[in-house]
């Protein structure tokens, strides 16, 4: 993760030096008495993958729907490619590809027909056959929507968002409902799309996805932006303990470990020893074991992840959706 985060920093470097492609300022949107988005501001730089994260009902989808021009904000300003999403809708739709949450096609529509049709909507579309190729759907061109697997439907949906050759793509809940393999394939695909110069806004409640893909994320909670940063920096903000697990090659006296100032707690789970300590605990444990000529087999270290950051920053009042394979 650290490696990827460094890559992201290297690529994005000084975010301020790059052109903002989306600017959202003080966005507010209420439905009746329910305030969905209270005060949201962020900017998306050209060429980045920008994540919008938050628990269900945080206002993520409403925020991007305002960006897409599907909803009129009550307050605030939005500029996408220098266009106003409501006033300049006709022009914006030419450059903004959108993948909506739970959007289906007619059951009997074939993959190639859908792409051919959607490409006819745009002034300067991509070659839809090439898009099919990139998305690995070329052999499904003649298949009806109903016969596609969940992953294939999702890829078609992404293909439709890209067929207009957009400069910005907004993808909402990209991999929800996909199996692990399809999910990983989709992530790779998104990276390839970005490498072609498309700026991507990714809405997700799935932490692993954001950690893997996003250059920067905005954490939204209860209609407000809690923080905007790189996933790695967010994880670092959370001062959590390290947890070290290993199986000692010879039985071990706990005192060897508990005497270390970095270690707060030691417990045994069968033959496995679990050590909890501060961020320097790993070094201390490994060297004390080495001094005692004990080998730590099956060594595992758990560190703060974006998920921990998420829980810490949203005040623990709700957990991120349990999305386990």
């Amino acid at each position, binding site marked *: 993760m650290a490696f990827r985060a460094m890559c992201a920093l290297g690529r994005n470097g000084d975010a301020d030096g790059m052109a903002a492609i989306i600017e959202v300022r003080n966005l507010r949107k209420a439905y009746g008495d329910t305030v969905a988005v209270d005060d949201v501001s962020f900017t998306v730089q050209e060429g980045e993958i920008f994540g919008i994260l938050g628990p269900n009902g945080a206002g993520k989808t409403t925020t991007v729907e305002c960006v*897409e*021009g*599907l909803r009129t904000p009550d307050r605030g300003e939005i500029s996408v490619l220098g266009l106003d999403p409501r006033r300049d809708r*006709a022009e914006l*739709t*030419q450059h*903004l590809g*959108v993948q*909506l949450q*739970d*959007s*289906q*096609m*007619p059951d*009997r*529509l074939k993959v190639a*027909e859908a792409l*051919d*049709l*959607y490409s*006819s*909507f*745009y*002034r*300067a579309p991509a070659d839809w056959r090439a898009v099919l190729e990139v998305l690995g759907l070329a052999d499904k061109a003649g298949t009806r929507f109903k016969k596609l697997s969940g992953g294939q439907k999702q890829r078609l949906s992404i293909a*439709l968002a890209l067929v*207009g050759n957009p400069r910005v793509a907004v993808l909402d809940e990209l991999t929800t409902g996909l199996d692990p393999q399809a999910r990983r394939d989709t992530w790779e695909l998104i990276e390839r799309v970005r490498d072609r110069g498309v700026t991507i806004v990714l809405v997700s409640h799935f932490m692993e996805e954001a950690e893997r893909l996003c250059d920067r994320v905005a954490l939204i909670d209860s209609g407000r932006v809690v923080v905007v940063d790189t996933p790695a920096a967010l994880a670092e903000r959370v001062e959590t303990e390290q947890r070290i697990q290993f199986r000692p090659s010879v039985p071990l006296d706990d005192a060897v470990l508990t005497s270390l100032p970095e270690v707060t707690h030691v417990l045994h789970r069968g033959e496995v020893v679990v050590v909890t300590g501060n961020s320097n605990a790993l070094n201390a444990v490994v060297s004390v074991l080495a001094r005692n000529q004990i080998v730590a087999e099956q060594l595992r270290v758990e560190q703060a992840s974006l998920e921990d950051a998420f829980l810490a920053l949203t005040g623990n009042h709700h957990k991120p959706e349990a999305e386990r394979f």
Partner: protein
Amino acid sequence: MTVINDAPLIPAHRSALAQLTRIEFRLFLRERVGPIWGIGLPVLLLVIFGAIPAFKKVQPGYQGMTILDAYVPILITMSLALLALIAMPSALVSYRERGVLRRLKTTPAGPVRVLSAQLIVNASVTVVTLVVLLVLSRLAYGVPLPRQFGGWIVAAVFAMAALLAMGLLVAAVGPTARAAAAIGAILFYPLMFFSGLWLPIPSMPVVLQHISHASPLGAAWEAFASADLGHWPPALSLVTMAAWAVVFGAAAARFFRWE
């Protein structure tokens, strides 16, 4: 013509509406509801009724028409009703249910075009069915072609407007494709009753005849039958259909939701 200088316009840019209509037509055929019920059933009934000898006798009170002559416009209204009230609304509502309309909203095409494409497809299929019914009844069963052909076409246009407006209202209020098809079917039976499917209007008791004239398909039958006999459709029948078209159309526009 001025040339827009910021975006290279592709000269062979295809019309989104034409593409949508082409696709909607294919889906209409693949969906099978429209072809089987909207085209197949009226034609099948024509064949059955044409085989009944009693239907070929001139009927007293029918102004010189045989029962079969009276049935041809009834079958025409039936085809109109099946396409406009069942095939079209269930397609449109399923598009709303599945987020197709919403997705179109995010493209330059917009959702209105798919509505137009549906109207074009259903109107075109209706025209083809009407021609098939007229030609088949003339050639196979000797039913005379409408003598006032201009009047007949006017009747067809008004009837189509009333029925498609009604279909749009069904699409507007139907929460799911299944529910829309059910609403369409519930409307279909009384409409067809007053169009004379079970008892042609001239055979109805006077009270039912009055109700029929006020109903969209009863008025349509009256207009078609007059044109068949060589008269211009009665103004009242055209006004009735136009009124239904306006009422249903306005209600549909008021209640239609894209998502």
